């Protein structure tokens, strides 16, 4: 497959991901008669909190994954320190940005309450995303296996 076609395919898949959201937005706006169903301030706050928390949690999971990598090497310390640093930067950035003021606080009174809420929120979102992924990929396989049986190769005479 040529590089151009591959790039095009990725773009098509990205559009396919966004298309249902746009359709819902257009239908919702048409039914309600305005384009302001969502609050941009709240949406930005949620986006920023989700980014920071999922980055930190993702780095923490990948830090655990480094142990599998270390098994295939002579247990190097450098990547371990690198990932610990990445996790610490994530935690520090989260605490610093939440502590800056009301920008990232969502109906929570303190930095600690917001951090704990972010953790819980991201865990629940991860759970929903994982379940949806299993169901979608499973449905795809179910559609593939329940289709007509295909002959892959011509049988030898």
């Amino acid at each position: 497959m040529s590089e151009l076609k591959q790039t095009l395919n990725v773009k098509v898949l990205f559009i396919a991901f966004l298309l249902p959201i746009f359709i819902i937005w257009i239908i919702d706006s048409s039914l309600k008669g305005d384009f302001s169903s969502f609050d941009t301030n709240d949406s930005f706050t949620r986006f920023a909190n989700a980014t920071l928390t999922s980055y930190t949690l993702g780095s923490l999971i990948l830090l655990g994954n480094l142990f599998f990598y270390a098994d295939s090497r002579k247990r190097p310390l450098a990547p371990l320190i690198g990932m610990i640093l990445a996790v610490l930067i994530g935690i520090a950035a989260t605490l610093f940005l939440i502590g800056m003021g009301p920008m990232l606080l969502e109906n929570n009174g303190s930095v600690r309450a917001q951090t704990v809420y972010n953790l819980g929120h991201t865990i629940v979102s991860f759970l929903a995303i994982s379940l949806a992924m299993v169901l979608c990929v499973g449905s795809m396989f179910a559609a593939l296996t329940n289709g007509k049986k295909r002959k892959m190769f011509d049988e030898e005479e």
Partner: protein
Amino acid sequence: MDEMMNAIVFFWLPLSLMPLGAWFSLSSKTNLRTNFGRFAAVSGFILVCISPWTVPTSPSSSIGHLLGFIIGPSSLLLIGIYLLIFSGNVPVGKLPSSDRKLGTFCMALGSLWFCLMQWGEFTPIYDGREVNRFWLIFFPTFILMICSLSSVLSISMLIIGEERQSESMVMRMISIVSIILIICGLTIDGKNISSETFTTYFWLSVSDLFGILVGVSLSIFIFGFVIYVYERSIGEPNSVPPPTPEELSQASQKIAANIGGAESE
């Protein structure tokens, strides 16, 4: 114990036991350690599920409450998918084709259960007063992800597969049904959840989804970068000397002894 300590001991510690136990059981090579990992993960799950009783004052215990509520429909959906996949044309582990009906029934019942939780009487009400706020996050994210992902899979089957129009149509139908459900949520009030509440949480879940995608991509990029920098710093591995004539002859003997086989008549 104060409130915070209670939450740590009865909620956050069991919650961290779940991934740790799973990781321990997957990475261990001995049966004892694998079983210990499984036991830790299951114990953690049970303790999180009973956290509304052990730490009722902590807001985090709403997650345990939500887990208890969604375990039924989620299990039905997962069992249904398993039965549907393995009752089809699979080379190994094929189930009887009658299981397809049971799988479809489980899927329909699981979906109906989730719909009743959103619009009917089965909504997770925490502490007998208000709707569990984590349910308001879970359901929009779940349905939005199904909607977008099935759309991606539908297109990818057309791009990558050959003559997969009918399978692509199935995925497109799932995406359309999800869109209809979301539109219903945005316009129809449920018994306990109004359409305004769903609208607010739905658009927040869109932001949430993009935030998670950006955050996870960033962490994977950092991980790849750390590995790349380390691999570059260790330099080229030492070259192995070429094989000697004795080693070559030994290898030829081994190859000659292992290829060929009996002629078929």
